[in-house]
């Protein structure tokens, strides 16, 4: 009588349980990487994304100039290939003589940090609330779902602009304003998935084995909905980065002279006539990073969760 043993911590020692899980994860990971390597746009996105991650971490050590060093004798210098430009300032300088190339590299850290932080916090809040609401339903679910609907009836940027207007600019306020609405997407995704998963047999089996609700949610249901969360999280990250840049552009996010891409574009707007390069290159940085993240996200979606293709 050789039957497939369900992985259950009750039947195995804790050590064996985690080893099996790990082996399964390793196998899945290999399979995933196989699919990923056959997906050129996903690989391209991943490589560019990792490059930006490298810039964000190593930025302060590799920038040729101090990104906030003012040099009034070098104001509004053009990029090196133009007349009047020099290799000292590869992409030229802004109106206070700050080196644009160094500022854009330094700005990577702010953009990525905002993207990663807002998405991670949104995932944690949205997933926990979604699990609870979808699993227990009842009054908690009704209240949360209504609140989520209410937040969804606000256009995102208007909500963020309003919140930033009231609480004032700054890094942590920015994270707050973006996650205040950011969790809703994950909440709705997880809640819907949990409601669907809950009716499946494996959940009944786990219940029959006497597993606790917490165990069922965390160990049985979560692994099955993790893929959708990862996919949505990746796609959301690009969006959050654009939101941060937009707020900083309006002067509500990270403030000049801190090197954030949005505020660099904003400063460049005052000098469009004489120094087109300031806005242009900072915008290229935003575009390339968001492009890479979305390419990665869409490939992840095709590989991990093709079902999500429907919600665009």
């Amino acid at each position, binding site marked *: 009588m050789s039957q497939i043993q369900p992985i259950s911590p009750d039947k195995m020692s804790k050590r064996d349980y985690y080893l099996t899980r790990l082996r399964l994860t390793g196998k899945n990971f290999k399979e995933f990487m196989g699919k990923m390597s056959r997906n050129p746009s996903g690989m391209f996105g991943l490589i560019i994304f990792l490059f930006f991650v490298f810039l964000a971490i190593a930025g302060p050590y590799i920038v040729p100039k101090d990104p906030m060093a003012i040099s009034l004798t070098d104001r509004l210098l053009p990029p090196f290939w133009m007349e009047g430009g020099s290799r000292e300032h590869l992409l030229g300088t802004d109106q206070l003589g700050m080196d644009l190339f160094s500022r854009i590299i330094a700005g990577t850290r702010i953009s990525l940090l905002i993207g990663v932080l807002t998405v991670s916090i949104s995932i944690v809040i949205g997933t926990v609330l979604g699990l609870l609401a979808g699993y227990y339903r009842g009054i908690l679910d009704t209240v949360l779902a209504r609140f989520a609907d209410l937040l969804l009836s606000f256009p995102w940027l208007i909500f963020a602009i309003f919140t930033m207007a009231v609480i004032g600019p700054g890094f942590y306020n920015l994270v707050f304003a973006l996650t205040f609405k950011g969790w809703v997407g994950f909440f709705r995704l997880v809640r819907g998935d949990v409601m669907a998963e809950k009716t499946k047999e494996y959940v009944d089996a786990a219940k029959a084995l006497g597993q606790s609700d917490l165990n069922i949610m965390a160990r049985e249901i979560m692994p099955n909905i993790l893929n959708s969360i990862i996919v949505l999280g990746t796609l959301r990250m690009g969006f959050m980065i654009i939101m941060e840049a*937009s707020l900083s552009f309006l002067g509500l996010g990270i403030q000049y002279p801190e090197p954030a891409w949005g505020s660099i574009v904003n400063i460049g707007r005052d000098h469009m006539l004489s120094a087109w390069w300031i806005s242009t290159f900072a915008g290229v940085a935003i575009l390339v990073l968001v492009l890479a993240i979305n390419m990665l996200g869409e490939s992840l979606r095709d590989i991990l969760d093709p079902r999500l293709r429907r919600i665009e």
Partner: protein
Amino acid sequence: MQLARIIERILIAIPVIIGIGIIIFLIMRLTPGDPIDIMMGQAGHVSEREVELLREQWHLDESLGVQLGYFLKDLVQGDMGTSFTKGRPVWDLIKQALPATVELAFFGAFFALLVAIPIGVISAVKQNSLIDKISMAGAFFGICMPIFWLGILLIIIFSINLGWLPTYGRISYDVNLQQVTGFYVLDSIITGNWPALVSAIKHLIMPSITLGFPMAAIVARVMRSSMLEVLRNDYVVMARAKGLREYTVIVKHAMRNAMIPTVTVIGLEVGMLLGGNMIVETVFSWPGLGRLVVSSIFVRDYPLVQGVVIIYAFTFVAANLIVDILYTYLNPKISM
């Protein structure tokens, strides 16, 4: 029972609008610090008397619940308070700026749909062709591109370098236009003022493209994928088998059904259009609601910010209501 459903949708929208009002109220009030201090932070010297008046006007000496009651009551009566910096009722300022915003939003959406729907249909019909690949790559760019940057890029190219289009405002200063509705394109047609019409349209081109671009990108993608799905259906095969012209098959049989998911997305995109509006109006110095709110944020003119945000939120709810109604019309299966 179309009518019953429409009424039901309107009734559902009412608590949503009240809820939005409450959230806005709570964010304003629960922020640490005395509202008067925050409001007066940049106003310079303020007399005791003025502070008293404000406290009274905003009912700040009452409890939070009573304040909320007053807030909602005033709101229902269309009283949004008085702007600190402009000294005029908020509602007047909104009424004045609204036509500019509506005109821009209309042309933005017009541009987006005009471009996106044909592109979506053609890409689906000629799937995997060069046209399909180029337009989908373009649409992907549109989703990833920050629109404030697109606007600035357009100004740098078409205004500064080529000198074709004006950089800011709604109309040239040397053109006289008698205002009737506040919509400049409409006004210049009504009064037969052709130089004004040319100037108004020239001023509209770049802001509309900037505003409509992300919407066009998303609509084109959705239109393409729903067209692809529809084209696989039996009734399309059937229509072809009957020997109908390809044009009839695509436009009359397939497109109408493919429009259903697209309309939903258009409704959601109205939110993007409204949010983008604030950015585009700032980039092009367009004298509408978006610029009004962004400029009032910096002088901390709270009643004005609050009023405009409420108007934006209402517009969004109303737009989705219209989309819902349109949806029942397009898809009779829903109204059971």
